[in-house]
């Protein structure tokens, strides 16, 4: 049977390769063309052969087909069991490399796909069969949803640049499934798949065998949700067409992305204003785009390191200048009118080249008055040229009240404002300006543009942030109402520099539709052709720039507009930080509302695995109350969390909806799995076996003790004895670590049970003890917590290791005071630091932040000034030990020992560093509370 099938497959793949090679289409091993029953019998026969004889090259295509089949149907947890008919057939063997060799041969002979990207390098064997499986079944839901979310962009890309479809899919993924993110790295494959789905019935030559494509589509449509997503996505991708000629499509895209923007002059800060109910005029400054300025000057964003900034009117707070990059384009409120000749953005600590580059962008352009036009969102934004157009509304700002006569003639209305040293006026320009009004405006240095103008009609475009360019979606009609204030016989319109088009008009007004425009920026130039009595007047012209953008998935865009927010502090905390209480959750929303908390877990396919209600709190609940809810969710779902590929924590507030924090689990070729019922830990090994996997264990009872373990036994599975153990597996320089908690009793009867009896046997020599503690801390910190109470027990162990490092560095009595953290204890610790009183004082009085990077310059300076430590490197290392010991790089061997020894010699320095950290902790704890109200 195996011989026959091998011959059959050779013929099949040879035929496919002959058709596809000229078009550079790959052949996939899953395109074997075998029936399901045949595959099943084949798998049994191959299994028998591998057990009795071993792998035989004579049947290499059989194995390629079977491996691709396994890649197609495996559930996303482990690949090798899906290929096995008998347990251990592939998990335990060392023949995986042979499989890879055969897939390489498949590539060479038949043009099979080559896995690419970081994932392929990482999972360098299983990437081959999975890549040849095209779209593994467990990823199909993810794929359908992603396709649906990007359907409009894909429709556009399929016409303008089809080869980049895969890159688009990769770039636009939100990362909520690590497995799917890996899959998307196969950009050629996903490109091929999307095009195959698009051209299923219309393509000249199938990119994927029709039968196989039908199988994939049928599997995709087996579930209603995926079916709906796929059908809706395909209907858009197949039917949406853009009317522009190819050269224009590419021109418009490139003009927007490469040519036009970078060469546009950079604008400094501009005013924005809003008329607010009961508050009058609110004034803001639109922050310039400093990223482009830095790039044009050949400076990286790193040039802002160590530089601080402050906006006009912010008297006290200096913040890192890197904030400017995130503020770009935002309108920031100002509470005082910026004084003349002073920068509106003050910088501190900048270099000369940086000052030359950014200085002009920090200055407001001084004018007799500033003209701000009202945009569709109600925000008035500064008009650079300072002119006004008929039919539009404006705010005019000036440092002094404008001459009353001209104000009256120009029809300016004074706007009340609480800001001193300025005057503000409102101006509604009529459709036809009188000469007197135009002249009065001119005397006020306000120019007028008239004669022909353009207004969006039907659907208003989106105001695009700080930019004055209008934006429509590719699904929306772009219709412009074009009007002239004199008699015209028609208009001449030119779009994107193409041939001008004459448009006849019976009145001085037309509705002009611009159809089928590609995504990107566009530019319309218009001229009004005078007629009748107006034929002697000059030809009036105007231009209108706008952008066409693809619609975005609604869950993404609606999140920022919701009536409440779920906030985690610090931002970007991990799931473990949240579950362990190191990161706090809070809800910002209307008072007196009930928040329903829940925790959902998802499997590899993105399907909901478990859902758990965690109780209710109020919207303004104290963090401690929310922490209790989180703790309950953690303890009720610990097994589900361990198994999950993604965990979502959600807060729901009736009609305001649901806000969710998503925590995807990364997947590594080596990983630990814990079966809580059997109390068995297992090592999943999907590595290439290019070198032995080294495994060790550190018992929970003796966290510094390292025990060598056999990898093969752990691949099979090993029972973990109470109270638990930390397991670490190392392969090619990368470690995977998990802490498995196995309490003697699953029910916690008292909190005292959390206070584990642990023994920390340390070397007698200080520097060796320090190295052991820091390295062990690194293992514990990175360990994934598995099993009952694992997160809590891990946190306890990490804290104890940190305490022991502090005791070793500063002495047990000093460390105890620091751990206490109360003002009295810190005062006592201050007395024990030693060295200069000034140094001790600075360790408490300086406003230390939890950021090590931000704290280093001041600490090094104080250590030097007060002669505690003149060597900056050592001062930095001491501070790193106190703030985050894992930021220290000791290296290995005698050099590491020497570094540790030198660090431990200056106890005053170390105590100062720990005291600074303790005070930074005090400030840091204050901030989230203040921020969440």
């Amino acid at each position, binding site marked *: 049977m195996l011989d026959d099938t091998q011959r059959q497959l050779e013929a099949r793949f040879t035929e496919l390769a002959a058709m596809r090679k000229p078009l550079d289409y790959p052949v996939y091993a899953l395109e074997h063309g075998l029936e399901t029953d045949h595959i099943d019998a084949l798998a049994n026969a191959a299994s028998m052969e591998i057990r009795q004889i071993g792998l035989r090259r004579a049947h290499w295509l059989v194995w390629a087909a079977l491996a691709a089949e396994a890649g197609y149907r495996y559930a996303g947890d482990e690949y090798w069991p899906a290929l096995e008919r008998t347990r251990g057939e592939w998990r335990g063997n060392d023949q995986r490399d042979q499989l890879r060799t055969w897939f390489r041969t498949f590539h060479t002979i038949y043009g099979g796909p080559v896995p690419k990207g970081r994932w392929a390098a990482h999972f360098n064997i299983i990437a081959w069969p999975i890549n040849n499986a095209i779209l593994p079944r467990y990823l199909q839901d993810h794929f359908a949803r992603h396709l649906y979310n990007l359907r409009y962009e894909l429709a556009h890309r399929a016409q303008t640049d089809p080869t980049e479809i895969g890159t688009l899919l990769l770039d636009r993924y939100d990362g909520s499934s690590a497995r799917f993110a890996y899959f998307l790295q196969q950009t050629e494959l996903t490109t091929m798949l999307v095009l195959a789905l698009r051209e299923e019935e219309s393509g000249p030559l199938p990119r994927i065998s029709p039968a196989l494509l039908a199988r994939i589509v049928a599997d995709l449509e087996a579930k209603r949700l995926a079916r709906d997503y796929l059908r809706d996505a395909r209907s858009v991708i197949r039917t949406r067409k853009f009317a522009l000629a190819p050269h224009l499509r590419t021109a418009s895209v490139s003009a927007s992305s490469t040519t036009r923007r970078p060469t546009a002059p950079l604008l400094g800060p501009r005013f924005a204003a809003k008329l*607010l*109910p*009961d508050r009058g005029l609110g004034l803001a400054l639109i922050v310039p785009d400093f990223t482009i300025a830095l790039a044009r000057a050949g400076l990286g964003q790193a040039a802002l390191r160590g530089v601080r900034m402050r906006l006009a009117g912010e008297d006290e707070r200096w913040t890192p200048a890197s904030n400017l990059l995130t503020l770009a384009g935002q*309108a*920031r409120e100002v509470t005082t009118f910026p004084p003349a000749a002073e920068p509106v953005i003050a910088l501190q600590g900048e270099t000369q080249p940086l000052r030359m580059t950014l200085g002009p962008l920090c200055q407001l352009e001084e004018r007799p008055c500033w003209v701000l036009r009202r945009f569709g969102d109600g925000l008035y934004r500064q008009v650079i040229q300072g002119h006004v157009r008929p039919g539009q509304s404006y705010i005019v700002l000036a440092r002094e009240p404008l001459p009353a006569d001209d104000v009256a003639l120009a029809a300016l209305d004074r706007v009340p404002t609480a800001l001193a040293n300025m005057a503000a006026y409102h101006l509604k320009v009529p459709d036809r300006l009188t000469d007197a009004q135009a002249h009065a405006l001119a005397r006020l240095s306000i120019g007028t543009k008239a004669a022909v103008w353009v207004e969006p*009609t039907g659907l208003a475009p989106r105001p695009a942030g700080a930019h004055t360019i209008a934006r429509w979606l590719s699904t929306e009609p772009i219709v412009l109402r074009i009007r002239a204030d004199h008699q015209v016989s028609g208009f001449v319109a030119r779009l994107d520099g193409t041939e001008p088009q004459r448009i006849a008009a019976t009145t001085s007004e037309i509705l002009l*539709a611009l159809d089928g425009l590609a995504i990107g920026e566009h530019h319309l130039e218009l001229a009004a052709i005078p007629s009748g009595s107006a034929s002697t007047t000059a030809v009036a012209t105007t231009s209108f720039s706008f952008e066409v953008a693809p619609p975005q998935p609604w869950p993404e865009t609606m999140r920022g*507009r919701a009536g409440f927010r779920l906030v985690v502090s610090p931002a970007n905390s991990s799931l473990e930080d949240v579950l362990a209480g190191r990161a706090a959750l809070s809800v910002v929303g209307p008072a007196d509302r009930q928040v329903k908390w829940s925790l959902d877990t998802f499997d590899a396919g993105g399907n909901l695995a478990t859902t758990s209600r965690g109780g209710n709190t109020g919207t303004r609940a104290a963090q401690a109350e929310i922490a209790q809810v989180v703790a309950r969710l953690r303890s009720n779902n610990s097994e589900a969390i361990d198994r999950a590929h993604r965990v979502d924590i959600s807060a729901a507030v009736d009609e305001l909806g649901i806000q969710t924090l998503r925590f995807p689990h990364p997947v590594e070729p080596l990983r630990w799995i814990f079966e809580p019922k059997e109390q068995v830990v297992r090592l999943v090994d999907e590595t290439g076996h290019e070198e032995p996997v080294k495994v060790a264990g550190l018992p929970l009872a003796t966290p510094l003790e390292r025990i060598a373990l056999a990898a093969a036994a752990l691949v099979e599975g090993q029972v973990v004895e109470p109270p638990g153990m930390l397991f670490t597996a190392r392969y090619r320089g990368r470690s995977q670590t998990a802490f498995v908690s196995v309490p003697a009793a699953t029910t916690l009867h008292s909190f005292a049970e959390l206070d584990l009896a642990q023994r920390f046997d340390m070397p007698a020599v200080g520097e060796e003890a320090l190295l052991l503690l820091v390295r062990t801390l690194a293992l514990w910190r990175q360990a994934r917590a598995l099993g009952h109470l694992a997160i809590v027990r891990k946190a306890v162990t990490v804290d104890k290791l940190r305490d022991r490092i502090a005791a070793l560095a500063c002495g047990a009595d000093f460390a105890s005071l620091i751990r206490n953290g109360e003002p009295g204890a810190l005062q006592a610790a201050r007395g024990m630091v030693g060295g200069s009183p000034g140094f001790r004082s600075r360790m408490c009085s300086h406003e230390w932040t939890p950021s090590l990077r931000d704290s280093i310059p001041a600490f090094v300076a104080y250590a030097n000034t007060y002669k505690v430590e003149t060597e900056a490197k050592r001062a930095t290392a001491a501070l790193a030990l106190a703030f985050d010991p894992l930021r220290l790089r000791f290296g290995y061997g005698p050099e590491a020992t020497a570094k540790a020894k030198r660090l431990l010699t200056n106890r005053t320095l170390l105590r100062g560093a720990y005291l600074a950290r303790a005070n930074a902790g005090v400030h840091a704890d204050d901030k989230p509370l203040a921020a969440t109200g």
Partner: protein
Amino acid sequence: MMQTLSAPELLLRVGESLGVPGAVVTDQLLKPALRRAAHILAPTARGDLVRFVAAPLAPFGDQREAVEAALDELIVYGDILAMRRQPLDKWDVPTEALRPAPPTFVRRSTGEFIILGVAGDHPTALSQELEALVVDDGLVRRLPPQAEDLSAHLRLLGFAQLTEQAWLRTPQVESAAAHIAYWRAKLDAAPRLDHAVDGIEILDGARDPHYYRGRWTALGLQSGVFVARRPQLYGAPLWSLALVERGQVRRLIDLFTDDDRQRPCDLAWRIQAAMDAERGTPQRIRIRRTAPTVSLDLFSPLPAFAERRLALVASKTAGAQCLYSFTIPAARLADEIGALRSLLWMTADEEHA
């Protein structure tokens, strides 16, 4: 690529984009256009939202009044949320801001689904297959009962589920006197004013309750507690409750709730209903039987909770010699009248043919 359009062609194109194919009048577009605008501008002031939708429809005439009315309905039924400014909002967010409700469904005991909310850049968060089944009767969008329960599927599509009770937001039943006492206590706790409140208008309970607009008047020499509206710069007048002594406002509170469950106008209309009932002139419902349905003619605006309840069983029409009417199946008459009596202390008059 470039072509001139007539106004009807413009209407068709806008309708197509908003999920209303074949639109022939602007009214059909207003609610979808407002949902779109709420997503683009949120959080935003009511005036900005209305202008954003109405200005580009200028070729069809001044649409502001129609847009205002459509917006009110979207707020009443829960597609757009009227909320107070939140702590993390940006500087330019007004005190009362509108936000789009997220895609949400209410599963009724009948198996029917009410579809609420805004789907970002898209006219709907439903799949094409489900969207084709939606019935839009002008008040709420409904998905008729299907062979299978769609709740799980809708949740997977990203919809939030709202219970019928949470959607209705029905307040507690209490007597008119108790309701007035609650607000009177709040008013009495407000500081006494020693200055005039310019431009204030009051809803004079002594005037004919059959003509709502006619009950609003500038302050004269009245005395008593009045629902009032006071003007504010660059915004709609604020709903207030005022204690007036011989034409002078002595105490005043602005009407709002911290939890954003009731709009200020809803609070005001319920207070007025209570005051009318206590005065012995309860607000009236005129019942007109036109088997198999019954029309309820109303002379004062209903708070949102009452309109939502009626929307479950009724269709709404512009009123003839009344403010507006709801048409309900005759079988629902007793329940609905009962609810209006207990929640708004109203009285029903049967019109005989």
